[in-house]
């Protein structure tokens, strides 16, 4: 019983972090058909900005979180104006933006390597203490992460469902041309989505680094997992992505317990490969039928 609680507790924390990292990716893919390979670097940048704001600038933690989200949202906007906007006018957008964001991600990652050094740094934004449920000690930090993630997901859901901005985002991802004809300013939607995705990445980066440590390359792993979640859910399916993220987090915690940490990532990847072969459009994705 204790083991099950332990697995559920750490699985939910993992799942919550993946979900926050994934929502941004999924929104961006849904509205722009863009796989943002710089997401991992932006996520790491969020962690470092938070660290720098607390340790070097002496901001209080809430402001530091805000600063990180703001900076990463700006990076998202920058990617829109410098890369996505010019590429949208040319052919082969999907391939080109993929390659371009690989380059941008590498630039951000190596700039952080120059600025902060290759050595792991602990994230100062962390809560001490723990709660005890049936003999299982759960760090308070995990509870906080779960809480912040839930608040963020609810906020994003309200944004998508209840505001006109959200309606424009959903309309664009359903049918870009139709949305444009109905007077949705698609360019603005793209910019908003990329900024939102950057801010969410920053928060997930802070969460992940508060459990592990800050290193310039720490974003690669969560990004690959976020992609896995997106792919399993069907690219661009935001709500499916949240469900898949939590399921994957629980699964990862379970495989870590059963098979050991070193095999858990490989197991996850194998699972994704199988899902993709079995259902090429993801578990919740719909197969698109194109008529000639």
């Amino acid at each position, binding site marked *: 019983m204790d083991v099950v609680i332990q697995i559920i507790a750490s699985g939910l924390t993992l799942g919550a972090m993946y979900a926050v990292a994934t929502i941004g990716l999924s929104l961006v893919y849904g509205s722009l058909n863009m796989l943002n390979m710089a997401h991992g670097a932006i996520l790491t940048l969020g962690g470092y900005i938070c660290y720098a704001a607390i340790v070097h600038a002496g901001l209080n933690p809430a402001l530091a979180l805000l600063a990180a989200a703001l900076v990463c949202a700006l990076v998202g906007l920058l990617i829109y104006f410098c890369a996505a906007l010019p*590429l949208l006018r040319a052919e082969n957008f999907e391939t080109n933006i993929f390659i*371009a964001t*690989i380059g941008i991600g590498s630039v951000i990652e190596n700039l952080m390597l120059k600025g902060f050094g290759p050595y792991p740094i602990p994230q100062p934004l962390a809560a001490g203490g723990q709660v005890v449920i049936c003999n299982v000690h759960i760090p308070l930090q995990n509870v906080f992460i779960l809480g912040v993630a839930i608040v963020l997901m609810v906020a994003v859901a309200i944004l998508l469902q209840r505001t006109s901005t959200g309606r424009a985002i959903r309309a664009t991802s359903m049918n870009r041309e139709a949305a444009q004809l109905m007077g949705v300013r698609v360019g603005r939607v793209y910019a908003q989505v990329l900024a939102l995705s950057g801010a969410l990445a920053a928060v997930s980066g802070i969460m992940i680094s508060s459990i592990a440590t800050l290193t310039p390359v720490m974003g690669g792993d969560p990004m*690959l997992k976020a*992609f896995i979640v997106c792919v399993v859910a069907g690219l661009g399916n935001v709500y499916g992505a949240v469900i898949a993220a939590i399921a994957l987090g629980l699964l990862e915690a379970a495989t870590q317990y059963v098979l050991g940490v070193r095999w858990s990532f*490989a197991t996850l990847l194998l699972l994704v*490969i199988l899902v*993709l072969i079995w259902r090429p459009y993801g578990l919740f994705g719909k197969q698109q039928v194109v008529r*000639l």
Partner: protein
Amino acid sequence: MTSIRRDILIGIICLALAAALPLAMPGRYVITQSTLFFIWAIVVVQWNLVLGIGGIFSLAQMALFATGAYATAMLGFYWKVPMLAAIPMAGVVAVAVGMLIGLACLRLRGPYVALLTLAIAQVMYVLIVNDTDCFTTVGGCMPLFGGVRGIGQFGDIGLRALFPSKWYVAHYYAGLALLAVAVTISIVVIRGPLGLAFRALRDNPDYAMSRGISRFKYQLWIFAVSAFFTGIAGGFYAIHFRVVGPTVFSFSTLLFLIAMIVIGGLGSIWGPLLGAAVLMLADEGMRELSDYRNIGLGLLLAVFVIAWPNGLNGWLQRSRTSRN
């Protein structure tokens, strides 16, 4: 001049220049770096077949390269297969793996292919690095795939024994010969009926399929063809460096190679070679600033995709047509 004649002419000129290089610049450093250039050029030329001609967004090429390198090393280490036989066998192993990856990607589209192939490469890396159980204890504990340290001591093709003081020149010519064959194959594929079918499937898959071009058949073909030489290049890499480790999976190598293709010109015959040459030279030039190497590479990659999506080759072609 027909395009095929032009290709032959360019090929012969390049080959002659490359063959004369060791006479003009006999320094060991230049020769070994050029050999490395040949290895990367083989991979890039073959990757271009899948990426540029086939339009399949596969990132598995480095995994196939690693398959070739590991297969060569393991055949030599465990079964004492002579290297001259092991390298072609490694090519065949790479073809088998490549066709499996091709099969897995068959029903997928664009970005899903990229993610799936990236995941496959990552699985291979994680499995190799995390394996710490001893498979053999001959000469110390060694996991099946060599773990983090990799595999060494698997034999040689004999060029080192044949030319004790000039072995690196011998390797240079061996690499050049392999590259010449790889480029010839790529020209035959691109200019021939196979290339026509690939381009048709890339540009309008539905129409091509309705005209009876089997996507199944040709996608497996393209993966098989490009995997063979990539595997052989991996084998040659293993021989040249005498050790194979998990560093062949590193992301910066992937970045370096993809930058070569994009900067040279995706989908053209000579573009990837040109890109490989330019980037190897640029890399040498930036050696002093090695800390900034990946920043420079990333910037180059992004700027080229955004500003010149057809690469240097497209730029050359445009300037030629505007002159005529």
